[in-house]
């Protein structure tokens, strides 16, 4: 599918979600509560079949987090970006998609490690790069480390 038809299909299917265009790919904004179900639908429905999660990351917008999923369909060779906005900065929680895309298991651990976003029902949510006793979440904008960080 080309971008236009993806956009139309998404609008039909998820009329309440905001869809951004103008960037490289269509961006679908999904609320936290619906994410798991939407993910399963995007993965399994034949017209989308977004089976390849090639990038999972989070962004700290100081007021909220957004978790960004870059999805691709190997069959149709189209891409879709899904953003999930998490407003609760103190205790950011999202449901895991590691049972839908297995690669998410590692990527979610990375996001947990560096942003402190907890993924519910994740099979093995631990720190990935940093040691278990590390304090703080390094990729958050308010993270301070006087030893390892050099301020410009």
């Amino acid at each position, binding site marked *: 599918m080309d971008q236009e038809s993806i956009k139309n299909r998404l609008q039909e299917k998820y009329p309440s979600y905001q869809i951004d265009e103008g*960037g*490289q*790919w269509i961006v679908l904004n999904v609320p936290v509560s619906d994410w798991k179900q939407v993910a399963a639908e995007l993965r399994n429905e034949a017209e989308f079949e977004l*089976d*390849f*999660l*090639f*990038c999972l*990351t989070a*962004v*700290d917008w100081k007021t909220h987090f957004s978790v*960004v999923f*870059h999805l691709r369909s*190997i069959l149709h*060779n189209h891409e879709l970006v899904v953003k999930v906005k998490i407003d609760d900065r103190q205790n950011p929680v999202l449901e895991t998609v590691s049972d839908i*895309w*297995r*690669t998410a*298991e*590692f*990527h979610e651990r*990375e996001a947990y490690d*560096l942003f402190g976003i907890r993924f519910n029902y994740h099979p093995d949510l631990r*720190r*990935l*790069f*940093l*040691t*278990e*006793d590390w304090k703080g979440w*390094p*990729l958050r904008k308010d993270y301070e480390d006087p030893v390892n*960080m*050099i*301020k*410009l």
Partner: protein
Amino acid sequence: MLEEIGTSAEGDLIINVGPQHPSTHGVLHLVITLQGETIKKVEPHLGYIHRSIEKMCESLSYRQFIYVTSRMDYLSSHINNLGCALAVEKGLQVEVPRRAMVIRVLMSELTRLASHQLWWGAMAMDIGALTPFFHAFREREMINDIMEETCGARLTMNYMVPGGVMFDLHPDFQKKVKEFIAHFKGKIDEYDELLTGNVIFRERTVGVGKISREDAISYGCSGPVARAAGVSCDIRKHAPYDMYSELKFDEILHTDGDCYARYLVRMQEMRQSLNIIEQLIDNIPEGDFQAKTKAVLKLPKGEYYSMVETARGEFGVYIISEGAMTPYRIKFRSPGFSNLSALDHMAKGSKIGDLVAIMGTLDLVIPDIDR
């Protein structure tokens, strides 16, 4: 952090492979649960050279951050740099001169050859044949010399800049590359004779570390690992960057998904890379090697994602810009990280010797995984 290192409650043997171990090629740490010689579980412990490059990049300018990525996948630093340069160019809307594009593709393919050569030697060494390593390094040395002449470095090249390349080619470049092609064409047949047909090598790799097409996609595998399982995922074909849409080359696909298929994919990719270099080496257009860009680069507010095919798979650069001199957030999608996540799946139920073969054919570069 680690479990009680000894035996598990079920009486299985738990051993640590790494962080210092001859076959992890870096500081990868695997905790493997063994029943006799059979592997029950492989659990990677990462982060021994985690430098938080993504955080570092948030305080580097768009010209500077490119060169940090040479330190990620140091075996394909050209291609990493290229990915970053492409992302910045996307934001700046710069037209890259044709000469620069050709140089970039040439350098990328030379890098891919060098990386595959090193992989070939190192993988053979993991499997127990020590000699191929030296044979592979002899040819890799020639590539390194070519690189050194043009960009002054042998490993972390730092040659790409937004809008082109940093210097023009060395006058001897074409001559040297042609010499190399003539030399390597004979040698790659020698590689095949030395290892591909060897009975023991086949015994060790055929049917070992199998991954199905569905699993390869689900685990986010890319590059030769996925292509050996039948996933068509070559970025050079599916989302061509620079010159690749104008070039004739094949995407190598195998369907077995085992170590031998991964081996064959890389061997044939080397031939394809030679093919690409041959198409371009006589047709380097005259002109600028760099587009004119401002001294201080500022990307307009927005999000830019670029992907390139490194020797290990899909490398992605995700830049979020707020319009400042430095990126607001950068994410690198490294191929090794996703490929590694499939290791447990591949190695379950096989022997320790197989684990080494699987790691060898996954072609892991640890700084690329840890970032």
